[in-house]
């Protein structure tokens, strides 16, 4: 017998065959929440918050393994705002890494590779997060961006290709130029044009 709480209220959940998983519980709850434009945001099990609860390892665990489940939810708008914050943070961090990386590339600094990897990963996350937000906004009819972020995806991919070519050629001066004089202004422009307001 397990106890399930949703936003502090006890929920009736029947694990009839005693073989349900945590994933089954989440799915059932989210089915009910969708019409209320809400999502499960946090999961606490036996008094412990599970930060990585969306991962398969957690979702596939049998529900009967624990006795106490607490689920906290957030509205679609709250989720979207959090996503926008995250996107802005990715852009800001990536921009911060550009001069560090360009400087290291020019001076032959040992941290050039690490800074470059951060920029590359940052760009991937920017595209992924913006895309997910754009799709959710469309689905739930929310006006999240002033412009469709998809118009920036093409130039970002092109920029990534140029950067990769310069990196493969070992042309560190060109790479620094591309980062500082192409990518950085582009991220500035994206930040300025994409959001209704900047944090």
């Amino acid at each position: 017998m397990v106890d399930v709480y949703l936003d502090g209220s006890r929920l009736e959940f029947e694990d009839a065959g005693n073989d349900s998983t945590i994933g089954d519980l989440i799915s059932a709850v989210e089915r009910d929440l969708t019409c209320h434009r809400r999502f499960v945001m946090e999961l606490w099990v036996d008094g412990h918050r599970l930060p990585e609860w969306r991962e398969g390892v957690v979702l596939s665990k049998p529900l009967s393994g624990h006795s106490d489940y607490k689920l906290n939810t957030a509205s679609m708008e709250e989720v979207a705002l959090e996503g926008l914050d995250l996107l802005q943070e990715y852009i800001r961090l990536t921009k911060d890494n550009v001069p560090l990386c360009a400087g290291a590339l020019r001076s032959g600094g040992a941290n050039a590779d690490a800074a470059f990897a951060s920029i590359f990963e940052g760009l991937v996350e920017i595209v992924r997060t913006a895309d997910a937000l754009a799709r959710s906004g469309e689905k739930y009819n929310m006006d999240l961006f002033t412009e469709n972020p998809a118009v920036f995806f093409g130039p970002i991919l092109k920029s990534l290709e140029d950067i990769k070519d310069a990196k493969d050629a070992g042309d560190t001066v060109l790479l620094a130029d591309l980062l500082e004089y192409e990518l950085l202004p582009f991220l500035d422009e994206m930040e300025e044009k994409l959001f209704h307001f900047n944090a």
Partner: protein
Amino acid sequence: MDLLEKNLEALSAKNPALAGLVRGYAGERVTVEAARNGLPTFKFSGRLFHSSYDPAREAASLADEILSRKPDWILLFGLGCGHIAKALLERGFRNILAYEPSMEILAGVLAGADISGLVPDVELFADMDLFMDKVRDLDGMDDLLCYSSNPYKAVFPACHADFLNRVDNAHTTSQVNIKTDIDSREAWIGNYFRNLRHLPEHAPIDALRGAFKGFPLIIAGAGPSLKKNAHLLREAKGKAVIIAAITAYKPLLGFGVAPDFVIAAEKVDLPEYFAYDVNDRETRLILGEVSHPGMFTRDVKEKFVFFNGHMALSREHAGFFGSSFFPSMGGSVTTVALDIGVMLGCSPIMFVGQDLCFGENETHAKGGVYVSQDVRYDREKGEVVIEEDYVTLKEKARSSFKLLWLKGVDGRPVPSKYDWVTFHQWFENYMRTLRKDSPGVKVINSTEGGAYIEGMEHIPLRDALDRHLGGPVDLDERIERASSGRGADIPSLLASLVSMRNALKEMRRSAESILEEVRRIKRSVGDGSAAAEAVKRAGRIKKIEEVLFRSAEKSPFIWESLSAATHGLKAYLRESGADVRGPEVMKEIEAVSAAYRDVAEMCLRHIPTVNMAAEELRSRKSTGGRVIEATENKGDCRDGRRLSGR
């Protein structure tokens, strides 16, 4: 006037040889293009060498980073379009040397970018040997910073590595020279005065000038690889002159080879290097005039002397012994032997045992003074540790050195240390000069292992002997004929010593007077009345200094004997910086005081030494026509005779 001409005109004023080289260059040139801001940039080997947007901004940030490390000199590997050099100059930094590894880049840049404004302030080189010559001329106490932008490092990796290694080695050489000067100068001067009683008995080595024209010479060092081919030298006996470094003497005897000459110049006595048997009595010693006096007492067949051109005393006195030859020397007796060989007229000159690097587990050939050795490398620390059992020591000695690298005869790096690297630098430098000045002299490195020496032919000793050994020659007869009837000009020598002694006395008096003035300044600084009193006293010190300097001019060696104090003062000034104020004045006074205390002490030390040397010379009797006696008072020949033929 086009850009190329403008640049070459500026370059010609500073470095006409390089300008001529570029004028005659007919190869490919990089194409200089304009960056977005109009400044020059270019691509080479598929890479941009400067920003294609704003090369000046790029250079500015690099210059700031470079200068944050506070170097005394910046050595640029790659000038490119000169943006970094320009940024450094704009920040007030003037000590810049630039080596451009590619003529393609240099010629292209000179044709496509205006660097005429840089050329007067930045010494530019396209020849790494000349660049290293310049590096060797820099003060060994200065901090050198090598800088290369990423594209240069990426496109010229081997050349860049070679550049760094050679700068490191060249700078090590300068530092070694300073250290040697500090450690040895005083001892050399002391030895010289003590040797004065021996020197008239021995002919200078240049008595044999030209005596072996076209005759082969073999110079044996004591490197570990001597064991590979020393046995072959038996067949060279009588068909070539064999000069052994003193360290190689006993190892050679172990191979049945008795050298014709053994050369030594150490400031300390080295009795353990001799055999004390018939071999000693069949060989001749070539000794530096500053060698330890004990070396002049060894029982050998004959002794020759060479004079050191770096010593003011020797330059002043060599002529009195009939010598006008000051061998070029690179810190090792084999370097001296090479220049002596050239002076003797020998060719080819063959080296054996000149490894200049560590062997498998030893520094020297077996059979000498090392009973056993253990050499361990710590590559992470860049250090080599040597533990050795020396023949005269009861306990094992342990020493560690910074690990340095030289190119080996097989092209691979070989581990070395500072002194060998210094010798190596000298050899390569000497060979470049020899090629220009005496192209007919062939020098062969038949060391079968060890470091590659640019400018020498590298062939096995077997081949070298087969090609160059002729018939036997009576070496004794040639040596006897060339060296007989030489003598020393004792009267002039005595007069010089008397003059030195008087100058030393005068200097000592002046130094003591300056110290007294300094003591009074200190007191006045202490009671707050510094300004007026100090100015008055400083004026007096200046006048006394003038007297002191005039006295010192008579004997320049005096300044040389103060080299340790000079370097100490220089190190102090570097630490304190140029802007010394307030309480620092006391430190300054202390520094001045210490310097003149050194002068006074040095005078006190040398006066009796010079006196004793003069006394010994005065009491000499004429021996075998070598010496002419004189009185001190007249300062010239008692019997009015002077030796001729000098």
